[in-house]
């Protein structure tokens, strides 16, 4: 497969289509013409691409990406971040609001979206801040941002500090659409401030201040009560603790409008993986115990946890090559998410491939209201696709398409590799490489 400029006509031949939204898991040709999936009649004159042995799925959708622009362009830009997304098989990302200036108004939101359009590598859905300046005090202009197309609001990086502000946010946004989502970074600041890893036997032996699991559980419980009372839509970011999963399970049974995400790194690692003080595995919330990881895996499999999201958090080298307690938290994730999920969950038989695609694409597209993404892969639908080799093995190493290299998976041997990414009919990634 060679690089090509897109708006042509091509057909993936002999690939396995995994399209949970369309209820399809079968070997079938996929024709792309003029930006959309076409019927078999369009096959004439189409460029043929051998997809035997490959999986074709709806393009992945990330609910949780830090693109860092504006303000922290030394870590990542919209251009480099969406390039990383495309390389990882993503056709849409939700860009978190903790930029400088904060995306707490329609102007910043529009600027971020425009940068995404200019890069042309992946659709960017800006997330708006819940509170002005992420200060946790006064509501940001949620209505103005909703009118500018924002579907999700989050103060990610910290929890909304008071129940009162969160209740007002969950209530207020209902004026501007029934589908608007308040997304919460669930960690109680008073319990985690100054902490660097999961609080437990490992933090004790490593001599690092902890961030206890109950810091998450407390905020999750509070938020679920408020979502239930207000009827607002709550999304819980990067769930990491076993008891959070149980709280969400019960709330869903009670009819609370809640969705939840989990990251590949919380599904793959535990606090045992911090014994070398690897700062690339320092993140908020922290990697927890094997018991927590098992609960996350079970919750993802049974749908209690709806989606897989990367929490792609690029940092400059000097911000990570530092003492553990000084290093900034976060790992990049866009380029390794699919391979990590295949390696850790699908190949060992913990998760079906169909549910993996569901959680990486279909469900996050629905949560984000990104109707052009997540499938189904049918005639006339926008051609937003990922094509991957489920069995190709590779070693995670720098450089990345991302400007950053702080990957928790550095050095890992993963099985599963993105071959192509199609954004509205354009091959933005071919042979695993960006075409522009």
């Amino acid at each position, binding site marked *: 497969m060679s690089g090509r400029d897109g708006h042509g006509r091509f057909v993936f031949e002999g690939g396995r289509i995994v399209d949970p939204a369309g209820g399809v898991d079968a070997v079938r040709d996929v024709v792309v013409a003029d930006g959309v999936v076409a019927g078999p009649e369009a096959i004439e004159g189409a460029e043929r691409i051998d997809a035997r042995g490959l999986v074709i799925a709806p393009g992945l959708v990330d609910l949780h990406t830090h693109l860092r622009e504006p303000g922290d362009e030394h870590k990542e830009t919209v251009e480099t971040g969406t390039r990383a997304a495309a390389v990882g098989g993503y056709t849409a990302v939700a860009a978190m609001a903790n930029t400088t200036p904060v995306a707490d108004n329609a102007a910043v939101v529009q600027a971020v979206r425009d940068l995404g359009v200019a890069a042309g590598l992946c659709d960017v859905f800006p997330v708006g801040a819940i509170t002005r300046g992420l200060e946790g005090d006064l*509501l940001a*202009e949620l209505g103005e941002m909703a009118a500018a197309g924002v579907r999700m609001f989050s103060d990610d990086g910290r929890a909304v500090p008071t129940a009162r502000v969160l209740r007002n946010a969950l209530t*207020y946004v209902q004026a501007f659409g029934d589908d608007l989502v308040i997304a919460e970074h669930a960690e109680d600041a008073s319990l985690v401030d100054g902490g660097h890893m999961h609080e437990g036997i490992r933090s004790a032996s490593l001599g690092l201040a902890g961030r206890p699991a109950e810091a998450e559980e407390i905020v999750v419980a509070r938020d679920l009560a408020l979502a239930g009372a207000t009827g607002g839509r709550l999304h819980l970011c990067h769930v990491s603790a076993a008891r959070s999963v149980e709280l969400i399970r019960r709330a869903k049974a009670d009819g609370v409008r809640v969705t939840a995400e989990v990251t590949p790194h919380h599904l793959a690692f535990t606090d045992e993986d911090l014994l070398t003080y690897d700062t690339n595995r320092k993140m908020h919330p922290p990697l927890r115990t094997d018991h927590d990881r098992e609960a996350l895996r079970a919750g993802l499999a049974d749908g209690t946890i709806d989606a897989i999201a990367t929490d792609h958090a690029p940092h400059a080298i000097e911000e990570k090559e530092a003492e553990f307690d000084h290093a900034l938290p976060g790992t990049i994730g866009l380029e390794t998410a699919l391979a990590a999920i295949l390696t850790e969950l699908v190949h060992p038989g913990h998760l079906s491939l169909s549910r993996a695609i569901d959680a990486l694409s279909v469900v996050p597209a629905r949560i984000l209201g990104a109707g052009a993404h997540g499938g189904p892969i049918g005639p006339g639908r926008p051609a937003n696709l990922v094509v991957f080799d489920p069995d190709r093995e590779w070693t995670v190493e720098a450089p990345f398409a991302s400007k950053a290299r702080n990957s928790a998976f550095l050095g890992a041997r993963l099985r599963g590799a993105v071959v192509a990414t199609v954004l509205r009919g354009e091959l933005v990634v071919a042979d695993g490489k960006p075409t522009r």
Partner: protein
Amino acid sequence: MNEHVLSMHDLSAEDVTRILDTAESFREVGTRVIKKVPALRGRTVVNFFLENSTRTRISFELAAKRLSADVINFSASGSSVAKGESLKDTALTLQAMGADAIVIRHSSSGSPLQLTKWVDAHVLNAGDGTHEHPTQALLDLYTMREKLHRLEGLRVAIVGDVLHSRVARSLSFGLVQMGADVTLVGPPTLIPPDAPAWGVHVSYDIDGVLPKLDVCYMLRVQKERQRLEYFPSVREYARFFGLTRARVGLMPDEALIMHPGPMNRGVEIDSDVADLPSSVIEEQVTNGIAIRMALLYLLLGATKEEAS
């Protein structure tokens, strides 16, 4: 007629009609050169205002004076209340001085009802906390009936900070009582969650409501810091809930624009909208005096005359 005027809930549809009809006859007094009748000569009305108010106090004062009552104005600042006297003791003092009616404005919801348990005078609620403001509702009903010739079936939107508005409560209760069709409009944070139990509709979409209205009633939006927890900014409020000239274009031509005052021009109502012919805000003020005359007369004068 009841002994007191505390809540619109206490008034039957017949009571409301009687009050409006009585006000009708008193309104003519305000057009005379000598704006005075002797109906309440020798009676004492105390304006007991423990919360700042100009227009309501003046309206009550004029109403009582046009009925020839003796009027005492009592406000919190510089009074015994400022010196720490309790509400009850102050009320008992007013009673001891022979007040026949006490008009009370207080920041505490329910205080007029409490007052009735301590004094024998007739009590008129001139606004209590975030509870009720029945005389405002009655003057609004009067204005609507005068302009549109009916109350039953009228489609009225009450737009703004319903949660903290005593006007919105009293007007909602009164309109529902008279068979009108009421829709509360505002940001969800400023609409009481259980408001539909009042018998009203709730909408967050003013543009969807305006075309089907007989009256658009705008509430004052408080801009104080503590209100800003409920909506992000005055600018955003005005964009989504303010009555602009463009939005007036969505309303039927004959529909009324009302506001209890004082207005925030440029926030809940644009300046040029407030001055449109369909805006009856000044008439509301004029009618307020007639309504208050009617209430004082019905409480203090009518019974006495009927008895004699």
